[in-house]
């Protein structure tokens, strides 16, 4: 098993060792370990023994299965009783929110291709390679003029909101986005391909519209689907096209990828590693979504 913060390695099921490590890091006030404990397990200092029990409970996949556990942790983080601020903003998004989305997400999608390429470079499983090829084409390559990629639809959304393609493409990522891209790149370089699959494709749960019905813990979806309705003039047609594409593609993308993660993590004995890297990735994703809001602030109160 791995530490979900620094990926330090421990033996299979070695929760006492993991707890000892986290306790030690917390005692020396290490920001990342303390923050992780505060946000995920408990804010109250406990003994190593109690912490081992709590960590075991938090990581337990026995009841839900690995995929159910991933969905639960994702929902708690982004769609729970206190949804992520970007999810709140996207329910009925302002022009500024959508532009924040465009300018940061273009960089995410380029990293996406690199991350999928790492998976393909490291695996010899045909079903995984075929899945990744299709995913990369949908997200970035596109299938000709009739089916533009998610990346192209994103840029068109930005253009419909008043930015030129040149302005969009020449805007670099905010530092928070850059930090996130570096984490995902490191995951691709250093982790097993099954862990990378969980880290990246687990993030597609963000637009999985089934989650809200499937998980009672989910209080909202990624956005209010009413904004996509034909009669709604809340967002531009290009913004509808972009959001609709993700809304339709990401159910299949995330479910199929998680099915592959489930299959291979059990087959290769990687369940605990997958859990740790997935938790790292959703932590990173939370910060990245805040960067979209930070970028949006630059456009608040501005019409062009």
């Amino acid at each position, binding site marked *: 098993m791995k530490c979900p913060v620094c990926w330090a390695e421990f033996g299979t099921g070695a929760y006492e060792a993991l707890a000892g490590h986290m306790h030690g890091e*917390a*005692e*020396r*006030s*290490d*920001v990342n370990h*303390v*923050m992780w*404990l*505060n*946000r995920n397990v408990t*804010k*109250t*200092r406990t003994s190593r023994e109690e912490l081992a029990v709590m960590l075991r409970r938090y990581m337990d996949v026995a009841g839900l299965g690995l995929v159910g556990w991933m969905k639960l942790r994702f929902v708690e983080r982004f769609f729970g009783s*206190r949804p*992520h*601020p970007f999810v709140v903003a996207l329910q009925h998004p302002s022009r500024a929110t959508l532009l924040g989305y465009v300018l940061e997400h273009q960089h995410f999608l380029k990293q996406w291709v690199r991350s999928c390429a790492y998976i393909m470079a490291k695996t010899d499983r045909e079903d995984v390679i075929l899945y990744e090829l299709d995913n990369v084409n949908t997200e970035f390559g596109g299938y000709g003029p009739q089916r533009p990629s998610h990346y192209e639809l994103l840029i068109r959304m930005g253009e419909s909101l008043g930015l030129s393609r040149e302005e969009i493409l020449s805007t670099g990522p905010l530092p*928070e986005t850059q*930090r996130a891209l570096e984490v995902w790149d490191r995951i691709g370089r250093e982790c097993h391909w099954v862990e990378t699959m969980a880290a990246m494709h687990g993030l597609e749960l963000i637009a999985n519209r089934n989650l809200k019905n499937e998980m009672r813990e989910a209080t909202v979806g990624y956005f209010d689907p009413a904004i996509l309705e034909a009669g709604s003039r809340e967002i531009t047609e290009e913004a509808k096209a972009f959001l609709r594409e993700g809304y339709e593609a990401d159910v299949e993308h995330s479910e199929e990828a998680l099915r592959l993660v489930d299959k291979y993590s059990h087959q290769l004995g990687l369940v605990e590693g997958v859990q740790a890297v997935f938790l790292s990735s959703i932590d990173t994703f939370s*910060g990245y979504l*805040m960067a979209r*809001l*930070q970028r949006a*602030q630059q456009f608040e109160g501005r019409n062009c």
Partner: protein
Amino acid sequence: MRVEGTGCAICGSTWGDYWEEVDGQSLFFCCSLCATQFKNMVQEVKRRTGWKAVAEVRMAGDYRGRECTAFSPDGKEYSFAIWFDSQGGIQGFKPI
């Protein structure tokens, strides 16, 4: 300066052992990031209100955003919402 509870001055956690002086008083924080956030918050309140010191801060919320009320030594109140970037800098601040 008075803060609620016995844990970290900003998030309430009792992990860690990090102390920093704020307005002449040594305060407990769980980590350096929370200390940075707290100091930035106090500084911003003083800048916006013109107060020389902050006597107390009450907070609700979590790392995604907090609603706070600050009190001056002579009993004035100032309420605001605040959220931080990953380095502890103020990403958003709205008077309520």
